């Protein structure tokens, strides 16, 4: 499978200009001699990430976006080149607003929305304010693609190790992570502390579950906050196959052999071990009492 991750740098709030710019990227990718099988774009790719109340003016339905993207791909040289596309966007579903990511199959004449994941962990602290404006997703699903089973996790979804764990248990062999991460922390060695944290996290999750991770980071400054692209592909043994710099737009590409997943899991069967032990962990009554410990006490009858 030929994978391309587009580290995109949108113009804030200008969907049409960003679609036009994406069309140029599509033209570039469609012109390569070997066709792409999967193209991945970041979170909030066509709008920028920090929108506050402007988000309601910039949401699209999944269907409307899928149609625009399929038409754009075919118009820009992809008519004879079926491709799968994953992209983060702000979704309007009948007045319910989500930070979503879509996996889209684009054929020569048709297209199909394979899966829409709605971000479940909406960061709402410090510089982040997502849950003030958006609803959270309620379900984490893995889905079949022509290359094997995958899952989508958006940015903070990936910071909770339970999420890639559940995705892997549900059969995902690759986890696609559209992200928009404002960089911070100058104390690292040559890279921002926030980028370093991401790399450590992706590395550890890929190894633990024996999955590929396709991480697409948004680029560009938004009101002083620099988005740290740093897109990368991590293989099921935790090796970073390719990574992009934090700054600027670019494309990274990789040839993905999903047979590596089976080999990595044979070598380090942590996922199998987890499947064996998980029922004991989940059926532990004490676990539930801890997760409900923060609930307020009930008033006496």
């Amino acid at each position: 499978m030929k994978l391309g991750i587009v580290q995109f740098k949108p113009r804030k709030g200008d969907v049409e200009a960003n679609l036009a710019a994406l069309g140029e990227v599509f033209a570039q990718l469609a012109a390569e001699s070997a066709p792409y099988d999967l193209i991945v774009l970041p979170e909030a790719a066509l709008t920028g990430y920090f929108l506050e109340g402007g988000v309601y003016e910039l949401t699209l339905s999944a269907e409307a976006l899928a149609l625009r993207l399929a038409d754009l791909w075919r118009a820009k040289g992809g008519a004879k080149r079926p491709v799968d596309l994953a992209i983060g966007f702000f979704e309007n579903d009948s007045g319910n607003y989500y930070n979503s990511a879509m996996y889209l199959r684009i054929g020569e004449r048709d297209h199909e929305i394979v899966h829409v994941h709605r971000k479940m962990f909406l960061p709402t602290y410090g510089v982040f304010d997502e849950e003030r404006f958006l609803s959270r997703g309620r379900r984490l699903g893995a889905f079949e693609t022509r290359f094997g089973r995958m899952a989508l996790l958006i940015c903070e979804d990936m910071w909770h190790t339970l999420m890639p764990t559940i995705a892997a248990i549900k059969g995902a062999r690759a986890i696609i992570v559209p992200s928009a991460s404002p960089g911070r922390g100058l104390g690292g060695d040559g890279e921002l502390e926030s980028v370093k944290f991401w790399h450590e996290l992706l590395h550890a999750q890929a190894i633990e579950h024996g999955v590929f991770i396709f991480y697409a980071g948004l680029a560009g400054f938004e009101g002083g906050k620099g988005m740290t692209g740093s897109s990368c592909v991590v293989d099921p043994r935790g090796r970073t196959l390719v990574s992009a710099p934090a700054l600027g737009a670019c494309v990274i590409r990789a040839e993905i052999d999903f047979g590596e997943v089976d080999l990595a899991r044979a070598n380090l069967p942590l996922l199998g071990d987890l499947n064996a032990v998980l029922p004991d962990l989940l059926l532990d009554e004490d676990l539930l009492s801890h997760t409900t410990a923060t609930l307020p006490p009930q008033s006496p009858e």
Partner: protein
Amino acid sequence: MNGATTLPVIDALPSAPSLAIDCELAATWLQAFLEDELIARRGIRNAVVGLSGGVDSAVTAFLCARALGPEHVFTIRLPYKTSSAESLSDAQLVVDALGCNDRTIEITPSVDGYLQHEPDADARRRGNIMARTRMLVLFDQSVKLGALPIGTGNKTERLMGYFTWHADDAPPLNPLGDLFKTQVWALARFLGVPKSIVDKAPSADLETNQTDEGDLGISYAKADAILALMLFGYDDARIAARGFSSQEIGIVRWRVDGTHWKRHLPTTAMLSSTAINEFYLRPVDY
């Protein structure tokens, strides 16, 4: 193991915020910030920087030169009659090092034109008038030059409220506002800012023989360390446990707590459910 063997003991690093920064990374990041905000977002290729002769404006000019090229950087010296000669000559060192555009505009006639009606104005009022007059010039020159004025305020002075409201903090872009003063010094050394500028005692130079550390009553090294701990969420007892006196902690906390208003836009009476920045929320780059 026999009794004579002594095992090596390895101490943990303290779990506390560090003020150390990767200067190369900081310079690259701030250069990209200026390029993106000026050229990509606004289509503006020129920057105006008021050069005081101090380290903050010198670092700002160096960063602008990296981002835009020195031919697109317009430094302006804005002396008042009481400004020290050293301020002007140190500013010249920056101009010489960068090869950027340079101009000196005396603010004395403008400032004194008003002050002749207010002969009793104290040093604080006079300083505020000078700072606001300087901004008036920088904004006007920016229009003339097709440029944007670039702010030079650092995180320490922003937190301590050690600036004139709607003057030093007025420019629309501020590259240094999230760096403590000691971090600005480190960045200055990395960028090659002339040594005499980095090593001299910082001064607003609004009064004769004025120094920042004299005004603030604490050294920048101590203030920055205390501020970093404070912003990390540490209470006074935990800060004191790291070797700071209650007087030093008190000076910093008093200045921060008394100046939250200076880090905000004016307070507007809210009367509707569409009040700007309360209900009607759009980011600055929308």
